[in-house]
């Protein structure tokens, strides 16, 4: 299907999310929409999918202007969308999920399970999706769940498939498989709109790349364009994608894990005898697909989860099963994985959030009374030093963009005297400009002689930051390698192919 967008404009109040955007997707083309968070990509896709109505402009499908009242009409006209967060019923089977809302029936409205199963098997084979129609969705890995979403779109005869940040949750191998599927779909004539902010993927799979910045189309370029050039188009200035790291003399042990065992909320062993040492002046990056025990490990180090056995040592002092307060006071800086849940109080001001874990410390309090002028001075200083873009220090944390929220947490943690610094998914959901900034701060902390532990499921980040890379799979460290190791080898370790340790 040939899809043409003509001067699409969408405003929210005084904010223009899409400013007369025009682009054309040819039949069988993989068209990449590249842009930072907040550039207007998702808004544009919601317009195409009928979830939002454009203020101006029109959409043409095979030359015919259309106006969708809702997404159901878009689906009927052959548009399918796979959202970043899957919309599947976890306890239903693949077949049930795919037919949901359009169930084939036999006489007397009985569900026709066989027909559904047959259709899915057929589609799955045609495009090499390899999905079992009878599997229950919640038992499937994320990569397969995503294929179920794609199947769902295809079962409605989608001739334009919109993929919204589809790779955020996948391992490198799963990403490769997804790209294979995208290519075979395109070869069969399906048009694909692929939304992402990851440069490598764009170059690997796209036929055409349209770069969007601040709601406008900046340029349409070919996939041969180099990564730095793409990043510059996306951000509006040249950015360095690699972090400059000088050699630093590595000192003694900063943070050490000895045979640590931690259980998850269900009581299952999530961290299985993990030993790892982070030395002063060194960044250790802990790689691994989400859900392999990294979250539990980070919580245990921060004192928020019980350590069943083993020992955690911070700067020579045992912090195993001490309270979060004591561990903070011992000098652990911690950027939590979920910044909205653990890192910030969104309804409170930026200045309050900047002293969230030091409200009783001088000069922020004296004899139980908060010293608001000291709190404000601290906020003004950190907002300036860490380049937090805000309307003022009294603005609520919820008014900030994701990148600036993360800067608030990083600023708070790095402004305390630290022994070691731990950051979980430090750049998740951040734009390229903010990622560059946060990475520089992390490296600066290492250069200042602190031990740094980075926990990340982004392989690019792990490779860019880590002096050593530890890979975690199923609660164990499957390997500790140095930063020159190839992506493929690390990818294999992430999939559990490493030697027993």
């Amino acid at each position, binding site marked *: 299907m040939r899809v043409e967008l003509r001067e699409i404009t969408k405003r*929210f109040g005084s904010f223009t999310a899409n400013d007369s955007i025009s682009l054309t997707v040819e039949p069988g083309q993989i068209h990449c929409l590249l842009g930072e968070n907040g550039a207007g990509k998702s808004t544009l896709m*919601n317009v195409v999918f009928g979830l939002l109505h454009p203020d101006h402009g029109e959409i043409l499908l095979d030359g015919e202007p259309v106006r969708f009242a809702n*997404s159901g009409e878009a689906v009927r006209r052959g548009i399918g969308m796979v*959202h970043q967060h899957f*919309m599947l019923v976890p306890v239903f089977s693949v077949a049930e999920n795919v037919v949901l809302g359009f169930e084939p029936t036999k006489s007397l409205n009985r569900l026709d399970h066989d027909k559904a199963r047959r259709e899915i098997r057929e589609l799955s084979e045609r495009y090499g999706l390899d999905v079992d129609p009878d599997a229950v969705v919640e038992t499937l890995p994320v990569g397969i769940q995503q294929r179920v979403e794609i199947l769902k779109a295809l079962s409605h005869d989608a001739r334009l498939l919109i993929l919204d940040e589809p790779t955020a949750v996948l391992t490198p191998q799963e990403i490769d498989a997804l790209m294979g599927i995208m290519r075979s779909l395109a070869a069969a004539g399906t048009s694909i709109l692929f939304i992402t902010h990851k440069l490598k993927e764009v170059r690997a799979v796209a036929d055409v790349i349209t770069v969007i910045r601040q709601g406008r189309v900046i340029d349409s370029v070919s996939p041969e364009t180099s990564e730095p050039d793409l990043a510059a188009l996306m951000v509006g200035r040249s950015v360095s994608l690699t972090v400059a790291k000088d050699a630093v003399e590595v000192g003694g042990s900063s943070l050490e894990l000895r045979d640590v065992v931690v259980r998850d909320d269900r009581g299952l062993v999530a961290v299985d005898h993990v030993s790892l040492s982070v030395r002063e002046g060194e960044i250790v990056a802990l790689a691994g697909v989400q859900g392999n025990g990294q979250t539990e490990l980070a919580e245990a180090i921060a004192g928020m989860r019980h350590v069943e056995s083993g020992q955690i040592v911070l700067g020579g002092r045992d912090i195993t099963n001490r309270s*979060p307060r004591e561990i903070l006071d011992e000098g652990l800086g911690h950027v939590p994985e979920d910044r909205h849940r*653990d890192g910030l*109080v969104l309804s*409170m001001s930026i200045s309050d959030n900047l002293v969230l874990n030091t*409200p009783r410390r001088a000069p922020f309090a004296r004899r139980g009374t908060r010293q608001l002028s000291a709190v404000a001075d601290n906020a003004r200083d950190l907002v300036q030093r860490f380049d937090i873009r805000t309307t003022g220090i009294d603005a609520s944390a919820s008014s900030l963009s994701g990148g600036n929220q993360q800067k608030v947490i990083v600023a708070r943690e790095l402004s305390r005297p630290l022994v070691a610094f731990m950051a979980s998914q430090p750049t998740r959901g951040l734009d390229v400009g903010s990622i560059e900034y946060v990475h520089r701060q992390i490296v600066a902390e290492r250069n200042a002689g602190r031990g740094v532990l980075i926990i990340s499921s982004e392989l690019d980040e792990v490779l860019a930051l880590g002096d050593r890379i530890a890979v975690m799979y199923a609660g164990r460290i499957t390997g500790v390698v140095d930063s020159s190791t190839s992506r493929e080898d690390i990818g294999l370790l992430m999939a559990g192919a490493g030697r027993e340790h």
Partner: protein
Amino acid sequence: MSTESITTAPRASWWRRLYTQSPTLLAGLAIALGIVVGAFVIIFTSPVVLRSWRHIFSSGGAILSALKITVDNVGAAYRAMFTGSVISPTLLWHSLTTGHGWTTTLTPLSETLTYATPLLIASIGVGIAFQTGIFNIGANGQAQMGGIGGAAVGSMIHVPMVIHLPLTLLAGILGGVLVGLVPGLLKAYTGAHEVIVTLMFNYVVAAFLIFSVLSTALQQPGQSNDISRTIDASAQLPPLFGVASGLRVSYGIFVAAAVIVFAWWFLERSSLGFEFRVTGQNPQAARASGISPRFIIIAVFCVSGGLAGLAGTVQMQSTTHYIDGGFLIGNAGIGFTAITVALLGRNKPVGIMWGALLFAALGVGGRAMQAATGIPLDLATIIQSFVVLLVATPVMITEIFRLRNVETQRIQLATQGWGS
């Protein structure tokens, strides 16, 4: 990425903006609506008014006369409510011109303040707990225990007023802390739900109240009724204008004023109050920031229970000077009203002050209205409930005024997967 449309798309309805930006105006509108609803209740429950409407087709002037009867009845009810709780303009004029009758003129205001004082203190206690995300439903039992503590110290110890009065107030606070601490410890160490435990403790304390006023230690000598000894004059909160004035309003209002100042300082300026608020807004982040949930839970129950206890003893020290088996039972249960007052005042000390004054005025005025017009006191309760309902549920208001933005609602639904 798909959250982008959620954060920018919803255009806040004017009511929701009002709710977040101008709670005072919102409360004013809610009160106005409550009064309108009350007017309809009067109309539909007053036999005189209903009878007048039954005959509107019989003669030409009947509609006008029915309208007049309606307006007269509703007007009389609200006039009685106002003059009974605030001030009567005619009496005020009379006092100003003749210089006499001040007691009668000021009695309504004095009564409203007398009722508002303990209610205000208890509501601030509940409000502080709410701000921390703790639902202290046990304020009534804590207040009763405060009354018991105050009555015991006030009647059994005989020392000069400078020591006796503060000691009695302190005994009330301790009584409240004691009762609050049990659910606090249970929640902190066993995870027991505070709503269940505090609610049940109201019954425990109510039973203990009967036991204590029948005990030889506290019971009025020579009595077999459930009534306590009267506290010494040195433990009483004396009337502001002297016993001779006939006005009940007491020095208790200074205790209430001190509580407002304390609560403001505590929530806005103290480190512990900051930790309370952080815990209330985001318990996960509080824990990650090194704030011990256990400590906060116990501290909240001490502060909240202590204030409820203070409310109970202030009530006893400024009005009856003794307690009986019906102390803060039923309609007098300020600990329960405090929950709604805290809601109405959005848990802020000054907001709660206005809420307590309004509720006290509606209660006092309601009784005056009942005496003057025969309309039951329950009308005041209806207005109170309606006002709280409106303030507590801005969403319902948005529905009533059809302010829901259909488009944004659908987007929110569409962009939320089960992963988020």
